[in-house]
């Protein structure tokens, strides 16, 4: 092994990996900002603002997608695509305090596209879980959870979407109405119908 042809330079100068100015917003303050503020910061070039927005919503978005599609891995892809769609929509986003409605409108569209695609097969939610060491109560609770999700998949898409947006996404009626482009009264009617049907199915199981 030969020695280096020239001595290596030593320097403590750091390369700029990303341009700093667009992300000048201190990350600590981002959590306190509204969705609309984060969207506007992201539109201005702040990727950390968009990251904060994704982190704020990701668990609920993933849960809605997983329950809507019945498949966790597909849910991750769909949720990712939804956030990318939101990112692409930054230039035309209207800050009206309805970001969740906008986000879930995009997400449900992505779910529908996924279900229409050839890859979308009717597969059971991949909730195979490790039960070793779990208490009887924990096992029963998981079984209940699986049955509820199974009953949910048996609902019509219209009823299922309202239930998911209300409980899994924790949206208000007005936000659900905006996301689904239906009147608030329709949202309520579908929600109560859906809950009655879900209970009926759970009793019959």
């Amino acid at each position, binding site marked *: 092994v030969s020695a280096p042809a020239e001595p290596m*330079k030593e320097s403590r100068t750091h390369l700029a990996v990303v341009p700093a100015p667009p992300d000048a917003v201190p990350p600590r303050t981002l959590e306190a900002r509204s969705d609309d503020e984060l969207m506007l910061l992201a539109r201005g070039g702040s990727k950390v603002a968009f990251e904060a927005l994704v982190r704020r919503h990701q668990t609920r978005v993933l849960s809605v997608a997983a329950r809507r599609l019945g498949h966790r891995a597909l849910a*991750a892809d769909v949720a990712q695509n939804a956030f990318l769609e939101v990112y692409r929509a930054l230039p035309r986003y209207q800050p009206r305090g309805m970001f969740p409605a906008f986000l879930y409108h995009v997400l449900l569209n992505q779910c529908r596209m996924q279900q229409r695609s050839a890859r979308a097969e009717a597969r059971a939610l991949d909730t195979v879980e490790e039960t070793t060491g779990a208490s009887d109560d924990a096992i029963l609770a998981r079984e209940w959870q699986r049955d509820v999700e199974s009953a949910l998949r048996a609902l019509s898409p219209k009823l299922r979407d309202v239930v998911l947006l209300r409980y899994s996404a924790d949206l208000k009626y007005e936000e659900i109405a905006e996301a689904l482009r239906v009147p608030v009264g329709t949202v309520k009617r579908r929600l*109560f119908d859906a809950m*009655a049907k879900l209970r009926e199915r759970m009793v019959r199981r």
Partner: protein
Amino acid sequence: MTSRAHGVPSSRELARYLEREVTASEAAALEAVLADSAEARRRHDELARIRDALGSPVSQIGELDLAARVLLAIEQPPARRRRTARFASWPLVALAAGLVVGVGLLARESREASEFRQKSAASPAGTASRFAGVVAHHVTAGGVTERLGAKLPARDGLVFSYTNLGPNPFGYLMIFGIDESGEVRWYHPAYDTLGTNPASIPIEAGVASASLGALVVHELAPGPFRLHALFTRQPLHVVELEALLRHGGEKALDALRDASDQIILTQVTP
């Protein structure tokens, strides 16, 4: 209130009650029924349990770092394959590895020829970094191996050996390079499949000049190239590390606790 059989409210009515979508008088009437009727309470509780089940996150979904995936996808359009690395044939690897292992003192020399950053001289990492380091060799297409110096031909692959001695050696290592445009090229772990998120490689304690074996070849752009060998106590993941670099630049590595970052500077030549 309508459609009650034997005085028990319907599921629909109870769902409205759970949502507070009843008038005060309806709520009072329902509460009176709930106080008297075990069947009504059972229905109410079942509905509440369904609502709670749907309100809880899908199991294990919280473990997925969607934000990191989204940011990665934003910065890297699917059509573009920028991190592709390839592994050279095993005979070449064996040849290169053999040459590397034969050089016992190169780790110390490497430390002299490269830059180290750690939290402070008094920190455990500061002590450990004096005993930890890597040596890089570049390997030509013809199989000639030379210790990496000031110049790195663009098409040459790199092999590494590491030393991890001292009273408190490290447990994990990442080796990556950053070119002039800020693009990160991974060597260990060799990140060659998009959508994955490999972790730091575990390293042995108490070894000197241990070969990492694989020869990793990137197609590099000519220009300055900074190789980082990041020794840590806990494993890190590629996506997290890249996010850290994106947000804070290379200085962000200073924020890693109890870690040692060795930097080797070289120039990629056409």
